[in-house]
């Protein structure tokens, strides 16, 4: 009997009623007030709609980019009517019994394709020279949902690049107007001095953001920016993200949590950012001192390699745990050794046989080869 009593006691304690929702036919239970997007994130995987403007740590964010549109095919158990239009999953809260279709709805996929096309319409597509390439949400989004060619035949909108202070570069041409940086500046710093100027297609991020640069947290706008519109001037053009090795590190900081990711090559710290979760959101915001001024390995306690999704291009350049290809050249040449091709990764006569390239962090660099008679 005691057992029974305990059981009912524990169910009473858990009495917080959860809402049952299904997303693409997968059921999940979430607390009332949860958005469809967060319910989908609870399920994880393919049913999670892409989100370019929503940012869970920024109040009021979301609703703008429209990439997260989903179909509500049943409103709730109480009112089963479907919602007449697609809704922004990041700003629509679930109801008990709601049924949502994301990737199972052709209508959603079609609309999303449209949104991606709109986002790319005026985008310069300058990924080859953009620092964000490799860790850009828009790049990922367009690979997944976009089409190869644009149907836009007109001149793209351009803006001058602006230095907003010593540390941040604003390249408005790449901006997708997600407003994340506006919320960041607004919510992390004391004064609201940064916003959107002009209207419609001519909208731009207000450059009087300059004024807020004397505060300690403005650097976070770089981390929240989903594209390469706001970049770190102390790291610009220094290296490609996929050539760098991200490591978790921390230091004692009196302004912020001090927990960061260092982007390193060898002992050199190229860039410091906040730690980001799998949805690209920072785990905790960091201060400008940590971000811009602590660029020596000795400033930090390195915890170990940062886990980055295997699919991310960032993991491409690490040369750790190299896999032997299934089809070796010898195999495809029916057992014959190649005469001209050389396996430059282990014994390179062109470089130096004495240097084992697989021991080098990242790709080989001229400094990795000791000079012999002044010739590399």
């Amino acid at each position, binding site marked *: 009997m005691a057992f029974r009593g305990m059981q009912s006691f524990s169910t009473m304690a858990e009495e917080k009623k959860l809402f049952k929702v299904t997303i693409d036919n997968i059921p999940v239970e979430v607390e009332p007030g949860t958005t469809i997007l967060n319910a989908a994130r609870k399920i994880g995987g393919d049913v999670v709609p892409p989100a370019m403007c929503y940012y869970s740590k920024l109040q009021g964010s979301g609703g703008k980019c429209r990439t997260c549109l989903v179909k509500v095919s049943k409103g709730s158990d109480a009112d089963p009517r479907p919602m007449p239009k697609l809704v922004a999953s990041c700003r629509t809260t679930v109801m008990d019994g709601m049924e949502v279709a994301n990737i199972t709805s052709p209508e959603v996929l079609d609309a999303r394709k449209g949104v991606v096309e*709109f986002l790319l319409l005026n985008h310069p597509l300058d990924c080859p020279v953009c620092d964000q390439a490799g860790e850009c949400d828009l790049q990922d989004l367009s690979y997944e949902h976009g089409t190869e060619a644009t149907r836009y035949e007109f001149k793209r909108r351009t803006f001058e690049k602006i230095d907003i202070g010593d540390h941040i570069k604003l390249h408005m041409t790449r901006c997708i107007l997600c407003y994340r940086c506006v919320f960041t500046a607004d919510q992390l710093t004391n004064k609201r001095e940064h916003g*959107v100027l002009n209207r419609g297609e001519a909208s731009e991020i207000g450059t009087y953001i300059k004024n807020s640069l004397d505060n300690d947290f403005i650097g976070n706008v770089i981390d929240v920016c989903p594209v390469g519109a706001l970049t770190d001037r102390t790291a610009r053009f220094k290296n490609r993200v996929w050539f760098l090795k991200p490591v978790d590190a921390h230091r004692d900081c009196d302004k912020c949590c001090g927990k960061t990711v260092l982007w390193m090559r060898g002992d050199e710290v190229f860039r410091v950012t906040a730690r980001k979760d799998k949805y690209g959101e920072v785990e905790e915001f960091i201060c400008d001192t940590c971000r811009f001024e602590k660029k020596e390995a000795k400033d930090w306690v390195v915890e170990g390699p940062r886990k980055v999704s295997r699919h991310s291009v960032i993991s491409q350049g690490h040369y750790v745990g190299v896999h032997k290809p299934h089809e070796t050249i010898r195999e495809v040449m029916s057992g014959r050794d190649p005469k001209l091709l050389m396996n430059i990764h282990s014994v390179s006569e062109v470089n130096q046989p004495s240097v084992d390239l697989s021991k080098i962090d990242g790709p080989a660099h001229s400094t990795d080869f000791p000079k012999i008679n002044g010739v590399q």
Partner: protein
Amino acid sequence: MGRKLLLDKAHIEGIRYYDVYRKNGGYAAAEKVLKNMSPDQVTEEVKKSGLRGRGGAGFPTGLKWSFLAKPEGVPRYLVCNADESEPGTFKDRYLMEFLPHLLIEGLLISSFALGANRTYIYIRGEYAWIPDILEEAIKDAHKNGWLGKNIQGSGFDLDIYVQRGAGAYICGEETALIESLEGKRGNPRIKPPFPAVKGLWQCPTVVNNVETLAAVVPIINIGGDEYAKIGIGKSTGTKLISACGNLNKPGVYEIDMTISVEEFIYSEEYCGGIPDGKRLKACIPGGSSVPILPANLLLKTAKGEQRMMTYESLNDGGFPTGSMMGSGGFIVLDEDQCVVRHTLSLARFYHHESCGQCSPCREGTGWMKRVLQNIENGKGKMSDIDLLWDIQRKIEGNTICPLGDAAAWPVAAAIRHFRDEFEWHVNNPEEAQRHNFGLAHYADPLPVVAAAAAV
């Protein structure tokens, strides 16, 4: 003669001023309300009248009022939407210019019903001279005890403030208006929450159009039931129509919703027909956002019935063959007008007015404008027409506020009904620079069977 309830005294010399307005029965409705009625009774009367919002969407006003949240100790607000910026719409301007006290009386009654002690008139920036008229009327109403503290001894307090916009169409959208009123950038809010729960300063708020609020005065004067007897079906009472374009007598007309579209265009009482004996080609019956109709579908519905100037009849056939009452901006195009150019000028407007918050509207409106520009300038391709269709389809329904839809619909309707004209522009780029496509078959009577099949 149709019945007039709003403009019946508009012709009286000096009606703009308090004394004349009062002498001609003004503030009688307010007196009645403050002396003998409770707020709920007023709302009940408005519900009975069947009054529908005159700002565009046609939502029942009484119902909207009853949705207003009424938490204890939180102020409630009434906001009068006088942003009137929809191309073709200029009826609110007429009301405010000539009958400012009618609006103030309407605001007083409505604020009383809603329990709002501070009420705002948000007026379009370009109506630069009207705030002065309103301010003077407010001052005179104060002087005569119709505003301020303890109005007419009823214990009810009310102040009315006039706020000018800075000339943005988007600030007519109710949540953008509220943002702007709060001193912020006029971006529409993401809903929910709706203004009835969290509006101005995060307090429960009702936003109504000027004409809607003015119509409350005759509703109280004659009673909701009597008001509901005017008109057909759910289109009760009278409606102001601002008629423009190729008409002999453009202007603001008050119609009771019992007349046909044909009568409105051709009768001497209203627009007096089309100048120079030209023929009717097309019409946008409810302001730039609603679908354009060719003459044949405008005068008769696809079922072959006479089309009436009512919410239901104008909407008969839905998007495929109908249009909407919208804000009552009635734009008429005669046989010499070019639908492509006309569509371009609307697309240009929406491109210019998009707030830029959401990607489909921000990017899509400019794209549509540029494609239309190419077609209009003889540089169009056949595939551009389908492209336009696809762009509008991807904007519609996928945006934060209805401006996206409003930008998509005119383009969709123009292509739907005037595709021949677009194709002619593409195929005859040089000729199209010299003259227009003309009336073509757009006024030909529709064979009823075929038309019905098209639905």
